[in-house]
């Protein structure tokens, strides 16, 4: 419990250790920690920026998507309208064509019928002639007609 030279030597040791810490221990680690803090702060800022950018991009992509949807719906509607129109046009054209075909068919049928009548007429005439011939052949009898023939000879 007595104060002696140890006091001085301990004070000197203390002073040396303080000096050592101030000079060699504290500054390098402070620098390292400060640098790391800066790096972390920058990283956090970058992350924040990235998040912001992402938000903007997602908003824009949503916009684009919506626009695209609208456009595609438009196109679809247009296409449908166009399709209907084409169908209508096709129907009209088909009707016209069908009328034409029917008309030409009718004309042909009429013609055919006319021709058939013609042929029939000729055939009927032939038949009449043939019938008349047959009738005539059976009716013409030399004896029966001898009077007439002789009368004719007389006249000559």
């Amino acid at each position, binding site marked *: *419990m*007595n*104060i*002696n*030279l*140890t*006091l*001085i*030597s*301990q*004070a000197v*040791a*203390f*002073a040396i*250790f*303080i000096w*050592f*810490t*101030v000079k*060699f*221990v*504290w*500054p*390098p*680690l*402070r*620098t*390292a*920690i400060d*640098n*790391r803090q800066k*790096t972390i702060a920058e990283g956090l800022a970058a992350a924040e920026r990235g998040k912001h950018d992402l938000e903007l991009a997602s908003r824009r992509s949503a916009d684009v998507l919506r626009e695209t949807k609208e456009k595609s719906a438009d196109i679809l509607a247009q296409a449908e309208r166009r399709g209907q129109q084409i169908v209508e046009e096709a129907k009209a054209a088909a009707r016209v064509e069908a009328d034409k075909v029917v008309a030409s068919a009718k004309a042909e049928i009429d013609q055919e019928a006319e021709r058939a009548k013609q042929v029939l007429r000729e055939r009927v005439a032939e038949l009449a002639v043939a019938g008349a011939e047959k009738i005539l052949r059976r009716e013409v009898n030399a004896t029966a007609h001898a009077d007439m023939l002789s009368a004719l000879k007389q006249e000559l």
Partner: protein
Amino acid sequence: MSAAETTLTPTSYISHHLSFLQKPVGTGDFWVLHVDTVAVSVLLGMLAFGFLWWVVRGATAGVPGRRQAFVELAIEFVDDQVKGIFHGDRHSFVAPAALTVFVWVLLMNAMDFLPVDWMGLFYEHVLGLHNFRSVPTADVNTTFALALAVWFLMIFYSIKVKGLGGWIHELFCAPFGSNPLLWPANFLLNIIEYLSKPLSHSLRLFGNMYAGEIIFLLLGMWAATGLAGTVFGAILGAGWAIFHILIVVLQAFIFMMLTVVYLSMAHESH
């Protein structure tokens, strides 16, 4: 131990353990060196600050290794404490000084954990030293040296920050006021403050560590009462050691905090 040939009494046991390894370097009571105190404290300081220096020299600003993270933890802890008390450029002196105080005092206090009798055997039979005390902070010279160093730093910074005139002005005009009638009261109070600061600063640490050591010794004496006493003493010793962990860290922390408080008070003018 050395008392083996003579009769071993509690008094001789305790006084043996409380004897310093003294080396006279001149005539008179003052010119004596406690070799054990100086050797242990300087060794601890060199180990601790050498370790810090070694870690810090390879410090990276990137992802720190385990060693660096540990050192950073200690430094950040001290720095946080200083930040709360000291407002100014703490990195140039106060914070590193606080780190020095904390680390050094903590390690010197922690020497108390070494079992006294085993260390006695080690010193006696390995180093051939009869008297050797392990705990430098249980030596009043150490605590006074630290407290007085802080005291001188306090006065140094008072004068540096406020100027010599400012400091003297403050001695007479604070805390009561600058009325000449109040000068004696102010001065008296300041003198008492300047005297009490190093005393309370150093004796608090010394008293705690000294008492801790004595309690370990008293518990160690249970071994003299036989096997049951030895077991009982061991259990009590373990309990006290566990409680002592708190005291060791707390006293180192208090010593550091007071250092920072005194130095920051020196930086502030009233």
